[in-house]
């Protein structure tokens, strides 16, 4: 089931309710609430933000304001595998950009289009993961890969595709 489908229908807000309760429906915990919701749904759809605003008793603008301020929040669906390429200074001077270009080319993505249509991959850049000793660094979900080359990065993607879509590969 795709992430977009999960969110449809009000019954699907059950998980959201549980998360809101876990944080005591406390507006000062808005950021951790949104982080937990994003972990659950993989993104923050508009209707969910409106729901959170009502539940916390704060204006929707406040929730949107926070959700759009922080780079970690995304209002568009994200892939099952989030590939984060470090473009911090240390990685940048160690040639991180060719890796980004290779990944985007392999997956048909651009700076604007970050997620593949099948919702398998999202490619984004971050500034420094604090593992500069391993520059350039690529993190796929929680797995850190160091001293990555464009070929290596594409190979990692191929491996995932082969695992996820044995037939297609």
């Amino acid at each position, binding site marked *: 089931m795709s992430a977009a489908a999960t969110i449809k229908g009000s019954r699907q807000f059950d998980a959201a309710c549980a998360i809101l309760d876990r944080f005591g429906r406390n507006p000062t915990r808005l950021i951790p609430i949104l*982080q937990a919701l994003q972990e659950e749904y993989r993104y923050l759809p508009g209707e969910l933000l409106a729901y959170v605003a009502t539940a916390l008793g704060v204006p929707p603008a406040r929730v949107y304001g926070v959700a759009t*301020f922080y780079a970690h929040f995304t209002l568009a669906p994200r892939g099952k595998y989030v590939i984060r390429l470090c473009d911090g200074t240390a990685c940048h001077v160690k040639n991180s950009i060719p890796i980004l270009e290779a990944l985007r080319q392999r997956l048909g993505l651009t700076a604007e289009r970050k997620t593949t249509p099948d919702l398998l991959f999202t490619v984004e850049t971050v500034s*420094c993961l604090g593992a*500069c000793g*391993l*520059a350039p660094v690529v993190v796929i979900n929680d797995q*850190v890969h*160091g001293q990555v080359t464009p070929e290596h990065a594409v190979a990692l993607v191929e491996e995932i595709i082969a695992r996820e879509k044995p037939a297609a590969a």
Partner: protein
Amino acid sequence: MTRLATRTDLNQLADSLRQAPAAGAAKPQIFVGMSTCGLASGAGKVYDAIAAALQEKGLADHVQLIKAGCVGLCFAEPTVELQLPNQPIVTLGDVTAERGRQLVDELAANGSFSNPLSVDNAIFKKQVRIALRNCGRIDPEQISDYLRNGGYQMLAKAVFDWQPQDVIDTIKASGLRGRGGGGFPTGVKWQAAQGAAGEIKYIVCNADEGDPGAFMDRSVLEGDPHCVLEAMAVAGRAIGARRGFVYCRAEYPLAVKRLGIAIEQARAMGLLGEKILGSDFAFDIEIKYGAGAFVCGEETSLIHSIEGKRGEPTVKPPFPAERGLWDASTTVNNVETFANIVPILEKGAAWFRSIGTEKSPGTKVFSLAGDIKNVGLAEIPMGMTIQELLYDIGGGSSDGKPIKAVQTGGPSGGCIPSIKFDTPMEYETLTALGSIMGSGGMIVMSEGTSMVKIAHFYLQFTCDESCGKCTPCRIGCKRLHEILDRILKGEGKPEDLTKLEELGNVIKDTALCGLGQTAPNPVLSTLRWFRGEYEECLKRGNRPPTYRIDPVKCVGCHACFKVCPANCIEGKVKQPHTIRQQDCVHCGACFKTCKFDAIARE
């Protein structure tokens, strides 16, 4: 884990830990560096292999195997350190699982390690480890390791022996300055917070570490989280706060995990929470997560972020010490600043002042990254020259060629050219060079790096990270970026350089917060030290230079032929040479070698 109900309990536990057979003094110890870099390089497998081999050889009870934090040798991960009783510690780099098993075999056969390929000791010789004292030497997930080394004793003293003012006086006398960038005297900040009005006060540890290329705070949190917790509790006692927050960036999952474990353990032992060690002092700590905004490292933004709002800065004054979290007095200090507190209280202000310089006492942890051989962390006394740090500890550039410049202070700092590498590093001297100490991130750049591109890269970063609240930063940085864009495309106009300077200085003077006030630094400092590169870019943009041999001036000495790495120079001795342009890699080696001024660079 039993709760320590009194101070006597703490002392008895510490004594018994020191005497216990597990204390290690009499046993060989093997430390495996298990921080983010180590784990990503395979430290987990090395640990498992060593553990299994120890079991196999029946040595599990005779050798202590420790999951430690990192010693800062990122270039040599995974690292393993070996300590035989009464012998100097030996550090091994690039250890594989196979090598791990061999080590155990050697130990089983000879009781020692034969000819270990150790990492050059020179890296450590010039270092003085205060903030990193425990990193790599204890298991960060075991509070007993920290307690054995005298942990939480200073908290006990702060609670039972000293008056709050005594603690503040010692910190003031030590001259400790904030390691998060500004260099503000920590004791003065604590004094202001103590004197601030209001019943409720907060302590905040800034672990946002947004400067790309800096990772010392991560290492401290991953390698020695208790030293930060103890210092925060001491600060709470001195200032009169009962709650603390660690604001940690979400990019550091391992640091967050270990910090969480440390807080749980300290609470379980009665070292955090209500009635600490049976006294009436209460202090508890909570972790707050960043969500990927660089500006949240700025203290007022950070405070808004903890409150659950957009992380936008506000004008100071009021300073957080007067009015911060939920309008209460809030003391914000950096991770490394806190990591210095316990040693200062242990050894005294005079000891601390004996290290470093008059104006900047103590040490600073620098992270070396980029084109440098020994990528990693180094904690050095303030006042060491850049040259010593880069060459004696850093081992010079990765390819052995001279280093062109070093960037300090991240997006708020500047590039320092190699002619200034004899500068002793202090807060003031780096500022005088147009850079800043910042958090201690150092990006080393080799000859091939284009300084204009670097300035452009940093401005891209600030444009992305500007919160948009004030106009100088939101629009000014964008314009700076556009001008650089056009210069790089070769469409720059001669007046662009003065425009960059004028606009840069206006932004510095008028932006609301530290982000905007320092954002032009990368441009201004590169303009100051590498103006020639900008001028070349004005002529031909980012296109690499073309080299041509003047057939009249060329005497056919053949010197360029010999140095050309691409073998694209043709010509017989004593006859004019030519360059095959299609194969040229634009390295400029021929240009530098020619003694007859016969090669033109366009």
